[in-house]
């Protein structure tokens, strides 16, 4: 009902489309989410994408943003992870008061279709999200966002759901430089990989820790050597930092590091370093 109330004053007119695009280079030291040394494989991923957004104006500082995004990723050593994704997003954004330090709340939903080169990974996904943004000074801003989503793949192993809560603290010492620290909590399904060997009874994981996992599993040919992928329901903590210089008013480059620590019966760690550029037209 609250959403309908916010949507009610919207006129038929929408501003836009506003187009933005991104390109990124990502290094993952553990692309397979492996717990043991045998299965830990590093990988570079190159990605790019674009978003077209339309802005519908509501009443007092209330905006409804609709957007359509398309992205692709190429994982240089493991082509099975190459993927193309498209999806819409709906977001309601409202500033509670007047002024740069007034808090902003937002909520919405997004969805997507992701097609992987390994077809069993292809999925349809959807999520709802809500967030809170508070600027304390010109330089300091906190953004907290919660998200709950699910994804339905062709194979059960790659199907799951999750809840995520993340926070970002941005420090902009001037209009050019941004330093950010991030933290996240995620509870839900993920996929952990284990290097495997063929035994008389079939494929077996080399790491016996896999036997502690209760979820579905399957053999995959994604990683150039035999692997078993297990669906794991686990808690993941993440924390990271980023440095982001602006190039002009509408472009920025970001170099970031994030560590993901997944707990559970057979914990694993994945570190990611990303270099990305974003531009809005």
């Amino acid at each position, binding site marked *: 009902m609250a959403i309908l109330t916010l949507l009610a004053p919207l006129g038929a007119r929408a501003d836009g489309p506003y187009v933005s695009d*991104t390109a*990124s280079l990502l290094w993952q030291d553990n692309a397979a989410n492996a717990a043991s040394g045998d299965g830990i494989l590093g990988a570079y991923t190159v990605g790019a994408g674009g978003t077209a957004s339309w802005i519908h104006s509501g009443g007092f*500082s209330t905006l409804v943003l609709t957007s359509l995004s398309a992205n692709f990723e190429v994982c240089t050593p493991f082509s099975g992870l190459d993927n193309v994704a498209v999806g819409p997003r709906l977001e309601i954004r409202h500033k509670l008061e*007047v002024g*740069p330090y007034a808090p902003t709340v937002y909520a919405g939903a997004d969805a997507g279709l992701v097609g992987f080169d390994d077809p069993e990974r292809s999925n349809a996904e959807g999520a709802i999200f809500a967030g809170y943004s508070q600027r304390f000074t010109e330089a300091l801003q906190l953004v907290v966002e919660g998200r709950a989503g699910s994804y339905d793949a062709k194979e059960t192993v790659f199907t799951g759901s999750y809840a995520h809560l993340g926070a970002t603290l941005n420090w902009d010492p001037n*209009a050019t430089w*941004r330093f950010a620290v991030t933290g996240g909590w995620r509870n839900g399904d993920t996929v952990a990989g284990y290097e495997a060997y063929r035994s008389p009874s079939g494929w077996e994981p080399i790491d016996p820790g896999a036997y502690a996992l209760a979820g579905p599993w399957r053999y995959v040919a994604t990683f150039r050597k035999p692997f078993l992928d297990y669906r794991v329901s686990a808690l993941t903590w993440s924390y990271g930092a980023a440095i982001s210089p602006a190039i002009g008013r509408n472009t920025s480059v*970001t170099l970031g590091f994030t560590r993901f620590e997944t707990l559970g019966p057979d914990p694993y760690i994945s570190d990611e370093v990303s270099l990305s*550029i974003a531009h809005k037209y």
Partner: protein
Amino acid sequence: MKRLFAAALLASAALSAHAAGIVRVVTKDPSGSPVADAVAYAVALDGTPQVHPPSEPVAIVQKDQEFQTYVTPVVVGTRVVFPNKDTVQHHVYSVSPAKKFEIPLYIGESSASILFDRPGPVTLGCNIHDWMVAYVFVLATPYFAKTGTDGVADISGLPQGRYRLEVWHPRLAAKVERELVVAESGDTTQVVSVTLRPDRRIRRAPDAGGADYK
């Protein structure tokens, strides 16, 4: 002949009371660089000259998601309009003590014209685009001018007399004022040292995003 001389003297005195001297204010920061967008103004110490606001409103345009004029000096009683020439809506506001107002989301020519009826600085913002910032400086004196990129402001139309010369800038670190005597002979140049605080503005560039968990 004496009568003619006396008449000439009286006429000269009458003219000098209305003489339009020009005070050239040259602003420099401590490194010697010119200071743009500073408002130099003279406050009469021997009277209170009337201010006459313009009959038409002053326009502060928004374009490319920025206010096109960073500092706009006006006299008390001036009306200001805020045409939005962007394709996206803006929500112009001020929470400054000298003038609180807001014009909720609009595009094109807003029907609202805002009356600035109290002297002082007014900070303008957009409640959608936090990086947008501009200033209206409302003056109770008709004698003012804004510095250009060369740091120079020419205050014209000052009758002879005593004044307090002041300089205002959005990032002014310390008050700048001095007493000034405008003589009958007219023009004078004042070199003023202005110290500014660092230019801290809200970042406009988009986020490039970070790593996502998979």
